[in-house]
């Protein structure tokens, strides 16, 4: 800690000197955020007080500082959690500097020592990243080398351990990646380009299990190709993982497989995107035992529509890394202005369809007792998958939506959306999947139709009013909802918002309640402050297919962000 303080003092001095001296002493940049929440007990939405923290007020924030001078860069991040906000991992407690690094580049070699984030390809094999909203931070702490062998061929090497809260995990992560960009290699730009790459990552963790012989070294490798040709773009990545019995796959010994492809085509106003995914036992952590967002080595692209509006977002897709397959198709077309559908200002239509299914798994069991009454898949290969494409009977999700964006007149813009989706609540929120499904299991499917109107009215220069009306109809789960939002902005400094969501057909009449929320925001330069008061409904917050359940709460919150 003293060393860090010394570095910071030196950096601060450097900047002060830089203000009075024309010599280049480099640049120091930073950003800051703090989020305070004061909770009120609300016996209607949280009758047991489960989400009412004993601290009453919780706060979480950070300050990032990055110093750069030429090819040299160094940075630190101070974080504080007193204690972490409700719904986020409680492992984040206290304060400290969990992120610090030094990086420099010289003669094609890029060296990072300390913490770093990195991704190989689409992330199937390796992705170290941060997503604060999820409480996910699997930053590496170690070494990274990036070397350009020749223009067009880049090699990366990583070594270290991953962050878990204010510590690092037990597992050692080693990896390498190479990428060949043929156009750059041939120094021929334009036209068709082919980028190919390969990556591998291995984890070492000591094994001490009394019953199972566990592999201490587990490896994963993948190959990828990206063909870019004018209107056409095709990306595919396939990956393999060696035996990795872990707490998430119930300690089975089957290797893992993953395939992710995405293709897009554009012609004039028309755009088409097609995607396919196949993930079989492909969750990879740097420790065998971990929960939710802890110590993830890889990332599986969800290939599902991201629900951004409040009500559809209550049913966001949660990736099933132990096995799923699906596809996504999106067609967008822009009707030109002056046409029947384009109107006076043009209209953009997006149609999106995606689905996800469990794999067609046939489970393998063994008996743990001589009486043969106690069976488990642990310690076996776990299962076999029926022939390709291996689509099982259990549907995780199906999502169809249409979005129409149009400028109605000089002052009015509108986005109108329709959603029709089927959501396997049991699997995606309660984790009832695979061998947890028994003969008496009731799979809870939720069938939803939702309509959204999002209208922006530019009242006069700098003044605008946004209206958002949402209606989400379902007979399952918590029933139907309606929501209204009015947001008045005076650019660039102020905004005021009032929102109310009403769960009007909850099967429990006591929970047919309103969730009002008022917000006020003020921006001055790069400083922003936002105050919010009201009730938040229980929901699920997802980023990139990784989700966290957020309990219902009531109270004040203050968010301050700043950067320089």
């Amino acid at each position, binding site marked *: 800690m003293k060393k860090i303080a010394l570095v910071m003092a030196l950096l601060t001095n450097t900047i002060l000197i830089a203000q009075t001296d024309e010599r280049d002493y480099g640049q120091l940049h930073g950003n800051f955020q703090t989020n305070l929440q004061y909770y009120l007990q609300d016996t209607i939405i949280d009758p*047991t007080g*489960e989400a009412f923290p*004993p601290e009453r007020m919780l706060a979480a924030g950070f300050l990032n500082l990055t110093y750069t001078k030429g090819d040299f860069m160094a940075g630190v991040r101070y974080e504080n959690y007193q204690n972490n906000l409700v719904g986020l991992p*409680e492992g984040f*407690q206290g304060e400290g500097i969990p992120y610090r690094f030094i990086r420099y580049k010289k003669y094609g070699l890029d060296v990072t020592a300390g913490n770093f984030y990195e991704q190989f390809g689409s992330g199937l094999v390796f992705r170290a990243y941060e997503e604060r909203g999820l409480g996910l931070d699997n930053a590496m702490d170690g070494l990274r080398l990036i070397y350009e*062998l020749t223009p067009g*061929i880049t*090699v990366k090497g990583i070594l270290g351990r991953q962050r878990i809260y204010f510590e690092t995990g037990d597992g050692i992560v*080693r990896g*390498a990646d*190479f990428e*060949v960009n043929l156009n750059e290699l041939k120094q021929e730009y334009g036209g068709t380009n082919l980028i*190919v790459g*390969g*990556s*591998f990552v*291995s984890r070492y963790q000591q094994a*001490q*299990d*009394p*019953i*199972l*012989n*566990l*592999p*201490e*070294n*587990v*490896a*994963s*490798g993948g*190959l990828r190709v990206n063909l870019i040709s004018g209107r056409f773009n095709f990306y595919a990545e396939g990956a*393999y993982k*060696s*035996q990795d*019995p872990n*707490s998430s796959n119930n300690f089975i*010994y089957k290797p893992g497989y993953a395939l992710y492809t995405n293709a897009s085509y554009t012609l004039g106003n028309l755009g088409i995107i097609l995607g396919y995914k196949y993930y079989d036992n492909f969750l990879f952590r740097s420790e065998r*035992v*971990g*929960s939710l967002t802890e110590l993830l080595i890889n990332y599986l692209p969800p290939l599902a529509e991201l629900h951004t509006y409040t009500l559809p977002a209550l049913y966001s897709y949660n990736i099933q890394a132990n096995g799923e397959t699906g596809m996504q198709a999106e067609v967008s077309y822009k009707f030109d202005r002056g046409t029947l559908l384009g109107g006076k200002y043009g209209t953009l239509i997006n149609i999106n369809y995606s689905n996800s299914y469990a794999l067609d798994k046939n489970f393998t069991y*063994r008996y*743990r007792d001589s009486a043969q009454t106690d069976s*488990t898949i642990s*310690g*076996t290969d776990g299962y076999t998958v029926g022939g390709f494409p291996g689509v099982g009977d259990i549907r995780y999700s199906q999502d169809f939506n249409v979005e129409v964006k149009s400028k109605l007149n000089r002052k009015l813009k509108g986005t109108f959306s329709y959603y029709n989706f089927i959501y396997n609540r*049991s699997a995606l929120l*309660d984790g*009832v999947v695979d061998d*947890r*499904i*028994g003969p*008496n*299991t*009731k799979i*809870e499917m939720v069938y939803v139709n939702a309509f959204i109107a999002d209208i922006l009215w530019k009242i006069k220069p700098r003044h605008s009013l946004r209206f958002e009306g949402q209606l989400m109809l379902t007979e399952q789960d918590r029933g139907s909802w309606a929501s209204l939002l009015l947001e008045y902005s005076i650019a660039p400094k102020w905004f005021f918002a009032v929102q109310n969501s009403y769960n009007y057909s909850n099967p429990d009449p006591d929970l047919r309640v309103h969730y009002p929320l008022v917000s006020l925001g003020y921006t001055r330069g790069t400083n922003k402050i936002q105050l919010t008061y009201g009730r938040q409904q229980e929901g699920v917050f997802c980023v990139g297919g990784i989700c966290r359940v957020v309990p219902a709460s009531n109270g004040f919150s203050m968010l301050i962000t700043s950067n320089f």
Partner: protein
Amino acid sequence: MKKFTFLSLISLFLLVLSCDTIDDPLKNNDLTGGGGNDTSSTDTVLQNVLLEEFTGVKCNNCPEAAEEAKRLVAAYGDRIIVLAIHAGNLAQTDPDHPRAFRTPEGTAYFNDFNLFGVPVGFVNRKEYEQNAIIKLFQDWNTEIVEEISKPAVAKINLVEQGYNSSSRELDINGTVEVIGDLPDADIYLTVILAESKITSAQTMPDKSINPNYEHNHVLRAAFNSAYGEAIDLSSDTANFNYSITLDAEIVKENAEVIAYIYNRDTYQVIQAAKIEL
């Protein structure tokens, strides 16, 4: 293209080198009898591990944690002493769950140690001071491996002194004998009554309700309060005896008595023993 082929071959080579292949996942070693440490003989010589499993009848993830406890007992034998503590919001009765097994002691542990939910557990109550006493069930084995290899510093000998079937009064006595270096702190003794083979409803992992679920090692009462009493070990030996009246619904033949001593400053369990009645 030659470079690409070369790099591909290197990647494949690294992949092959960097993973272990296990052909036989199951170990054959028998860990249950080693060291003469059968606590049912009431004579504890080696370090035993008290696994306090916090659970609830409405918690659908709890049967998996109970399975893990069972797996660990199968692996380590009687050196693992499991105590299932039903507490928290998911340990409440409703029409589907007519019994919930809450106790004032269990609620005290749940609140005093700031538990956020179930299933979680304490392994010998280690790492209280590091604010890491709460262990997810997936971590129990790793924690047990650390604890079980420690040399014992005390022995606990437990004996059923007598039982009056009409008054349902149970008398137990026992001895704590110091055989190593005790921590420089107050040592407390807690004696607990638990019960196994209770058939009652439990929410299962698939959210269905099993009305005939078998609950084992359920905390039913404390002989000498939730946190016990100080025990004077200045002469390296101390005797104790306690009585309790069994509640009418407790089946005496399925009951267990668990005694453990712990460091009052750190809550770390120093030794534990169990007898089945």
